[in-house]
């Protein structure tokens, strides 16, 4: 029988792994687990302090051994953090503060009493929800890939194995030939989750068939896309699932060396994946002679330098080679000639995390989820002007309306929905008419946007679409590597035109010119960054042309965003002269007129910083 000694031992064959797993499950003594979400969001709200308090409290109350405390990765519901879930009942406490800790341990852990004030309340009905799965935010989701995050400690290999980890690797190595693995992925219909949506099985097959002894597998965790953070959360919360996916991929394509390319801005992802690699190597699940089969595969970590263009495969590989991350023309695919000119398989984090699932549950099962050409689930980061921000995993085919209103809880502050931006800087903005669109790769492209990495940014009536278009252009202009002319010059010119429109100097022909330039970029740019750079501009022109017209012809910004075209006013009827805004104004533009008298705003001095608007609690400042 497996004993403690075993824990430091390598697993040398298939049966070893299974008996190790059985032993872990048998050894489990605690009957309750308190999981504390330690995603970036919850950490920012003080999750680590709460975790420590739980540990201390459990010690003080003498509950060690029967209750354990687990720090998990992101559980998705960032808006209501810090999140504490008590398992196995899955009682969800949200916005937990350090002073709540002893109460939770005494009442809920010891006496099985629910603390009503810490439960999530459905705003429309005031109903308290006890279990995680009954919260509307989670109810409509199908958390196949992301759900495990809430159950495991990312730094513990045992946790992952206990949850069924490395079972897929075991199955592949013991009973499947590389061709069978490739076929399985092809049948599943899985498409790359990084943006392009290229068929994963086909990519694996091309790499497998490419001539060459040395091949590589790269996991792309660069995630430069503003608005997306699912790769980060997966890498931080469940690094072993990605490593398992990589080893399976390596076995299928015949690679011996792998790289995880991680942004340097993601220190926790870096740390957790380093730990995971080390532990998997110690256990014989990675490195030389994996599970005693003679198959070798090792993984190195390569840190990115914070360049958006490095999400582009050729640029990413240049960066791993220690050169500047400039893309090259992609006449020959990286699957055939990639890293150091050798066949290279590059997959996104989420794609790889799907692999063990497909192997375990079968390609047919996976194929049964989703729509026509888009199978499985997709993780979206639902952010911006929406009640419940966070990470959601939904089956393909769900509508935008379900996502924004049922999972997201609608638009806060009684404001009106204006648009949802999907697919990051390469995607587009979709208006209200498109809310019933079912979300998958093809439907989104047909509507002039794209899946991209899965960023979903909701905007309300206070967002100006011209400003959003300019925002994306200035972002892309800054991130363009400058190697090809259409991208380098085209983006600059487009940004200048939009600057002019925003300054109130727009000309009638500007819209046409923007469309022309966008199309030239699509045709002429060297890589995906430039090729899709026109999308935000084209989609905003297509759906929100009236806003462009208002800026150009009426010299007016309807949303009240573009500084040169707006003015702040004091609504005298609402102002009681509390002078909060006077203290806040950096330009001394507001003056006190006497007690209970409305304040006065000097338009000549006003720098339009909006500080008064933000601080006023009486709706006495208006922007027009």
């Amino acid at each position, binding site marked *: 029988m497996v004993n403690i000694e075993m824990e430091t031992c390598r697993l040398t064959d298939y049966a070893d792994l299974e008996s190790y797993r059985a032993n872990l499950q048998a050894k489990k003594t605690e009957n309750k687990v308190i999981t504390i979400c330690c995603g*970036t*969001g919850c*950490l*920012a*709200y003080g999750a680590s302090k709460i975790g420590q308090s739980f540990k201390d409290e459990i010690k003080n109350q003498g509950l060690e051994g029967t209750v354990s405390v687990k720090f998990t990765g992101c559980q998705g519901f*960032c*808006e209501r953090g810090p999140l504490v879930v008590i398992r196995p009942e899955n009682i969800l406490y949200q916005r937990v503060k350090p002073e709540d800790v002893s109460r939770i341990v005494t009442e809920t852990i010891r006496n099985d009493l629910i603390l009503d004030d810490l439960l999530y309340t459905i705003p429309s009905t005031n109903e308290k929800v006890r279990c995680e799965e009954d919260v509307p935010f989670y109810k409509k989701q199908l958390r196949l890939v992301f759900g495990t995050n809430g159950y495991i400690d990312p730094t513990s290999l045992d946790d992952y194995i206990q949850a069924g980890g490395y079972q897929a690797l075991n199955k592949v190595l013991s009973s499947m030939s590389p061709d069978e693995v490739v076929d399985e992925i092809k049948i599943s219909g899985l498409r790359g989750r990084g943006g392009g949506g290229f068929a994963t099985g086909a990519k694996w097959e091309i790499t497998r068939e490419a001539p060459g002894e040395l091949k590589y597998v790269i996991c792309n965790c660069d*995630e*430069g896309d*503003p*608005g*997306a*953070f699912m790769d*980060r959360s997966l890498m931080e919360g469940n690094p072993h699932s990605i490593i398992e996916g990589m080893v399976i991929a390596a076995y299928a394509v015949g690679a011996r060396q792998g790289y995880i390319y991680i*942004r*340097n*801005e*993601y*220190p926790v992802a870096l740390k957790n994946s380093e730990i995971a690699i080390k532990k998997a190597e110690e256990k014989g699940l990675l490195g030389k002679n994996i599970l005693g089969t003679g198959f070798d595969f090792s993984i190195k970590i*390569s*840190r*990115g*330098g*914070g*360049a958006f263009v490095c999400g582009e495969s050729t640029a990413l590989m240049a*960066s*791993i*080679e*220690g*050169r*500047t*991350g*400039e893309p090259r023309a992609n006449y020959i695919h990286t699957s055939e000639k990639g890293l150091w000119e050798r066949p290279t398989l590059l997959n996104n984090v989420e794609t790889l995390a799907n692999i063990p699932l497909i192997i375990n549950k079968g390609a047919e099962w996976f194929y049964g989820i989703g729509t026509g050409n888009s199978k499985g689930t997709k993780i979206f*980061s*639902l*952010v*911006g*002007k929406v009640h419940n*921000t*966070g*990470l959601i995993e939904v089956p393909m085919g769900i509508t935008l309306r379900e996502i924004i209103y049922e999972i997201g809880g609608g638009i806060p502050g009684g404001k009106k929905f204006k648009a949802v931006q999907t697919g*990051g*800087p390469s995607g587009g903005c979709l208006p209200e008419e498109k809310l019933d669109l079912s979300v998958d790769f093809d439907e989104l492209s047909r509507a002039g946007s794209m899946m991209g990495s899965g*960023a979903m*940014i*909701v*905007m309300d009536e206070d967002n100006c679409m011209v400003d*959003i278009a300019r*925002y*994306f252009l200035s*972002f892309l202009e*800054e*991130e363009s*590597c400058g190697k090809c002319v259409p991208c380098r010059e085209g983006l600059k010119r487009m940004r200048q035109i939009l600057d002019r429109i925003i300054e109130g100097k727009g000309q009638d022909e500007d819209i046409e010119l923007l469309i022309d330039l966008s199309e030239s970029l699509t045709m002429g740019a060297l890589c995906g960054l430039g090729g899709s750079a026109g999308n935000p501009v084209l989609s905003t022109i297509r759906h929100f042309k009236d806003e462009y017209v208002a800026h150009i012809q009426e010299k007016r910004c309807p949303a009240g965003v573009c500084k040169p075209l707006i003015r702040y006013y004091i609504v005298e009827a609402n102002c009681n002269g509390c002078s909060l805004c006077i203290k806040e104004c*950096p330009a001394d533009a507001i003056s006190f007129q006497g007690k209970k008298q409305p304040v006065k705003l000097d338009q000549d001095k006003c720098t339009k*910083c*909006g*500080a008064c608007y*933000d*601080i006023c609690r009486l709706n006495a400042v208006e922007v027009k």
Partner: protein
Amino acid sequence: MSVNKDSIYNIVDEVVVKHNGDPSMLVAMLQDVQAQLYFLPRESIVRIAEKLDIPLTRVYSVATFFRAFSLKPRGKHNLKVCMGTACHVRGAEKVLDKIETELCVCAGETTKDMKYTIETANCVGACALGPVVVVDNEFVGQMTTDKVKTILEKCN
């Protein structure tokens, strides 16, 4: 921050040894050097090129291409304002404006007393909290202009 040439050389040499002198690890080496010095002084770039026996231009091109690197000294406290889309739609620009006004320097610059450096990031991956400011590696979410003074004072 003033560091003499010898200690820069020591830091660089150690980092190069740590990465086995492998030129393909150049990005990681520059990151490690910067983690210790907060920026990349000229001497460090020259030394790396010498140690790895690669052209100075190559090191320089990598050091200027990636956003993570700074060739200018940075202040004691680092304020990184996230300008990602989610933060942008929730008013990141206003927050940046306010910080710039309070400190009288623009993004990318350091205050004269070397106390603060303001930077912008295109996304720090905490989109659900937007607008986000990362103050010395600590995330401050749901930033508003009226919170700016408090976070600056907290840095002391």
